[in-house]
């Protein structure tokens, strides 16, 4: 039986400047179903849902709820339409417990009629009352009047049993949670639970979960899915944003696939397959025409073995990672965002001292093995290891936004100045060189880099990192947010480094680029390496499966294929 449609989005378009996040997207959600919203990173899933949650406002298109057109301007509007979204980054107050977070900001409805009736009844004396009774009645009357005034200024008490309603919701859907626990004591999964209960408590009938399983263990994921199914059976509509195929197949009723901001199709889960979904998600292979030379004399430059890392939240972000990067070769790293790519590169660069395992560097001159683990960036440099790192967060880590180009050039070399002083001459000529050779569009060298456009910022950063003639070059998402031309500049730079015999490690999100650019592609999922494939023979589907299959690998690690 077809269920009634709860929400319909029609022709939604959303632009951010030049970038089109959603283009003429349609979507409908039925009552009492779990809809999976599937797509690669950057396919516009989250943006589309943010328009339902009142974070963004669509440029074009209409939203209908129960067949009526609605306007959603703010999260508050979304709540009024019974839409609640659980964002990837939780919005919780750390020092509050679960209950306080759930009731935070809740508009308080004062039952004025009941209060009026109460005052009226208290005004009348009940037959013959003693002075004591009269006194009591007057006190009560005063209290009732104050109640009204108090409600007006939100002075209502947090009643001792205010947790009861919330407890009831939690029990109804089978959440196991201690509501008195402080958020800072909670695991990520508990925090997520609080967010879900908060949304339910506000009366949401349509729940949107953005990548809910990204941070969960397999057991927690299973429990979450049980809860989600309970909610569906209760008649609620649930939208799960995800790019994990196995989850889509196991939990959803229907799947809507987005690609590059467009809605490709919505299919019934029961009638589809992994292959079909992958095809819809990644699309036809795009020919990019990136030159790829055969690696010359690929000798081992950097070997990582058994690297593990547990982060501050006590989550294992890297799990027994082993691989080798070779000179004269580009090693691609593919994986959904947040699978441990950042931590892996930071561990190699000496920014994650807590990592365990082995990171060995082979000096090009002598082939002498040097241990890099648990060394600071300064120590690494002092050992003569020429390691360059283009981090994901360009202006927050790789560069200082408020400093000019010359000063940013100095970040790597300021210690080379004479005695006590810094030398700005060499960085200045370096800056001029980079501006010239990489065609950085800037009025001059003394302009704060934050004023440059994204592509030019990246050229400055990559230019600086290459300038120190590295033997290992790590680049995390170096073309994210860049236009086509700038992207090609970066690809060419990486290729040139490769030809010069540098071991290049490239973390990318666009599989087409990875396949065209890299000699080998390592796939990481949930902090584990799920496979290393040859860039020349690999297909997108193959990599896509490795990217999403991490959880299944646990049962059958023997299928990890290492080719090439």
């Amino acid at each position, binding site marked *: 039986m077809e269920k009634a449609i709860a929400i319909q989005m029609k022709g939604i378009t959303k632009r951010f400047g030049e970038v089109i996040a959603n283009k003429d997207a349609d979507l409908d959600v039925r009552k009492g179903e779990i809809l999976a919203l599937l797509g690669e990173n950057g396919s516009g899933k989250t943006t589309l849902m943010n328009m339902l949650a009142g974070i963004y406002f669509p440029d074009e298109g209409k939203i209908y709820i129960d067949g009526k057109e609605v306007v959603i301007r703010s999260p508050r509007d979304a709540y009024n339409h019974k839409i609640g979204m659980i964002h990837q980054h939780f919005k919780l107050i750390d020092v509050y417990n679960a209950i306080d977070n759930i009731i935070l900001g809740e508009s308080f409805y004062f039952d004025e009629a009941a209060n009026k009736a109460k005052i009226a009844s208290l005004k009348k004396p009940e037959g013959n009352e003693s002075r004591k009774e009269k006194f009591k009645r007057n006190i009560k009357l005063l209290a009732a009047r104050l109640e009204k005034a108090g409600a007006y200024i939100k002075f209502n008490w947090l009643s001792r049993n205010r947790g009861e309603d919330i407890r009831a919701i939690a029990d109804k859907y089978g959440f196991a949670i201690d509501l008195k626990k402080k958020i800072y004591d909670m695991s990520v999964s508990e925090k997520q639970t609080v967010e879900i209960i908060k949304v339910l408590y506000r009366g949401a009938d349509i729940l949107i979960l953005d990548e809910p399983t990204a941070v969960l263990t397999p057991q927690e994921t299973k429990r979450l899915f049980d809860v989600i199914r309970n909610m569906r059976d209760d008649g609620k509509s649930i939208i799960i944003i995800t790019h994990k195929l196995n989850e889509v197949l196991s939990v959803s009723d229907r799947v809507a696939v987005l690609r590059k901001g467009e809605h490709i199709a919505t299919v019934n889960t029961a009638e589809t397959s992994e292959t079909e979904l992958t095809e819809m998600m990644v699309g036809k292979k795009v020919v990019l025409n990136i030159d790829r030379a055969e690696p010359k004399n690929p000798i081992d430059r950097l070997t990582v073995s058994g690297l593990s890392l547990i982060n501050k939240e006590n989550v294992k972000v890297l799990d027994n990672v082993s691989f080798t990067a070779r000179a004269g070769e580009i090693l691609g790293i593919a994986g959904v965002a947040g699978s441990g790519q950042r931590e892996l590169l930071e561990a190699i660069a000496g920014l994650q001292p807590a990592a365990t395992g082995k990171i060995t560097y082979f000096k090009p001159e002598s082939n002498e093995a040097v241990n890099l683990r648990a060394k*600071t960036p300064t120590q690494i440099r002092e050992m003569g290891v020429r390691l360059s790192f283009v981090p994901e967060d360009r202006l927050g*880590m*790789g560069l*200082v936004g408020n400093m000019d180009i010359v000063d940013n050039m100095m970040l790597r070399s*300021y210690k080379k100045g004479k005695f006590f002083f*810094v030398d700005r001459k060499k960085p200045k000529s370096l800056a001029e060189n980079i501006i010239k050779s990489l065609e950085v569009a800037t009025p001059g060298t003394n302009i704060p880099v934050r004023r440059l456009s994204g592509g030019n910022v990246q050229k400055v950063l990559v230019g600086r990192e290459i300038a120190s003639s590295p033997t290992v070059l790590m680049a995390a998402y170096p073309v994210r947010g860049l236009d086509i031309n700038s992207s090609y500049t970066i690809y060419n730079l990486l290729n040139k480094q490769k030809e010069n015999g540098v071991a290049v490690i490239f973390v990318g999100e666009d599989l087409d680029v990875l396949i065209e650019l890299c000699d080998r592609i390592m796939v990481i999922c949930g902090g584990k390496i799920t496979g290393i494939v040859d860039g020349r023979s690999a297909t997108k589907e193959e990599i896509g499966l490795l990217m999403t299959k991490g959880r299944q690998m646990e049962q059958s690690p023997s299928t990890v294929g290492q080719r090439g």
Partner: protein
Amino acid sequence: MKSTEKSAREPFFQIVKRDNLVWWKAWLIRAAAVISAFLVCGIVSVILTKRGFGSFYVSLFKGVFQTERRIWNLFQNISLLLCISLAVTPAFKMRFWNIGAEGQALVGALASAAIVVYFGGKVPEALLLVMMFGAAVAASVIWAVIPALFKAQWNTNETLFTLMMNYVAKSLVAYFINVWVTSGSGVLGVLKFGHFPAIGGYAYLLNIIIVAVLTVLVYMYLKKTKHGYEVSVVGESLNTARYVGINVKKVIIRTMVLTGVLCGIAGLLLVAGTSHTVATNTVGGRGFTAILVSWLAKFNPLYMILTSFMVVFLQQGAAQVATDYRLSNAFPDIIIGMFFFFIIACEFFANYSIKFRLAKKEKKA
């Protein structure tokens, strides 16, 4: 339909952070703020004194420039304020909110006074001055480094910590005065020893020269040295500092040592160069004013010459206005407070622009 509904519910203007204000526009905004501050100060003084608008400015300028002594006073006061402003600047650049310069300079002054009390007349004057310098710097460094150590190790809130240290320093001064002055008057008279030599007959000249040299040195330190560079990186982005391998704890402590050294010199200037005594109010709130001076100059030592000049000019000029019109000696504080409000508020207009929605709508259509 939707868009009309949207505009009806949204505010008419929005505040947008602006990124690329041309430098001369930014200075124009600041100049406008200074001028309007002066105008409003004039208006307020007319209201308070019921005298002509112009006479306020005449008094103001007379108070600062009329006699040679006043001009010397002006430069002397600027040098003291500037010295303490220089002291707080490196730490601010690092986003370490040290509001304890008052106390840090005070213990410097106390230590140099202590040297005079115990050694004055017993050792040659030159040696005495060197000893005063050493003691002042040592005391101030200790005062400045204690909060820095806790900040580096346990991230203890430095604003509140340094604030409290001011009052401990004040009590310490009061204690020592009572130890030294047995009469119980609580006032340490003018010390006979440990005076800076008068250069060319000018008593304050050495003060001014020292601070001028320090200004250049601090400017060079921040702009030209590796330390200064590290300070800016730590202040701008801790993540970047980590990325290039800067030891943040070390930088915090080292910078506060520098603050201590400069505060110690300020204390020495106060005792040896200016007041030749020490009291709980020797620093006279300059530790706090210095924060404003440094902030208004965007932590640039050369601009700080200008901002400290403006503050001292107003202080001294308004004091003259108060004398001329027989107003309370608190009058300068009111004028300076209002001046600060204008300058502080003008930063908003330099950093943000207000866009009106109606104009935006028309563009779209």
